[in-house]
């Protein structure tokens, strides 16, 4: 069963897969306290969305979806660069990247 030649049967599977990956990413963000791992989970979520876009693109026979994926990659790369720089500077100031130690946002 080729997913390309037989679209109806597999669209749902790709949907299901990317939803699962996305939810794992969300859970990871909530579950872990290490800011670096949280960043990685965000990457995972972005990739789940990318996968969905590519599958839509394939099924609709339209390249636009893939172009969007391209732009998402651009944004993701920029985000990682800034995020890691933030992490380094936080680590330098606090000596830890545990999000529990970042609790200045309270009354």
């Amino acid at each position, binding site marked *: 069963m080729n997913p390309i030649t037989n679209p109806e049967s597999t669209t749902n599977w790709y*949907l299901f897969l990317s939803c699962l990956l996305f939810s794992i990413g969300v859970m990871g963000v909530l579950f872990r306290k290490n800011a670096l791992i949280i960043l*990685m989970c965000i990457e995972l979520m972005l990739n789940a969305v990318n996968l969905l876009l590519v599958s839509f693109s394939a099924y609709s026979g339209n390249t636009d979806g893939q172009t969007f994926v391209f732009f998402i990659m651009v944004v993701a790369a920029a985000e990682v660069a800034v995020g890691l720089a933030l992490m380094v500077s936080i680590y330098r100031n606090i000596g830890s990247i545990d999000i529990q130690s970042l609790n200045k946002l309270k009354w």
Partner: protein
Amino acid sequence: MESTIVFYLLSALSVISALFVVFSRSPIYSVLSLIVCFFTIAGHYIMLNAQFLAIIHIIVYAGAIMVLMLFTVMLLNLNKELGTHKFNLTKLMAVITGGLMFLVIIASVKSSSLANYQAPAYLNIGNAEDIGMKLFTDYLLPFEISSVLFVSAMISAVLLAKKEVK
């Protein structure tokens, strides 16, 4: 028939590696398993006839982003366990919330008309020429602006990470 097997295999691998990213105790293992996950996603791209994107994906994610992550882990010497994996209320909440998220997303997808979507006939898409045409005609302006985004990201990363002069 082979493609179906490959699909299930890749899917299983990506889900398992993704779970490993979340639950691994050491950040290094998390990073490595995320790389594995990205490779499987690249495999999905090839299956979906998006070869160009698959290559780009590997270059950007596995080649650049994950290397950056690894370097950060090593430079900051983070490869030690932060806290314990004791199962406390926050973690329970996290798992429940993640599960609820999954359910809600699936439910919304099901309730949408997407499930009954009838695809048009397959066209020859996904090669470099095709995407290049799109990028340099319809999406020229966003494409150019993304370079500005890169420059600003680069500058801000340098500014944030450099040591303060005292």
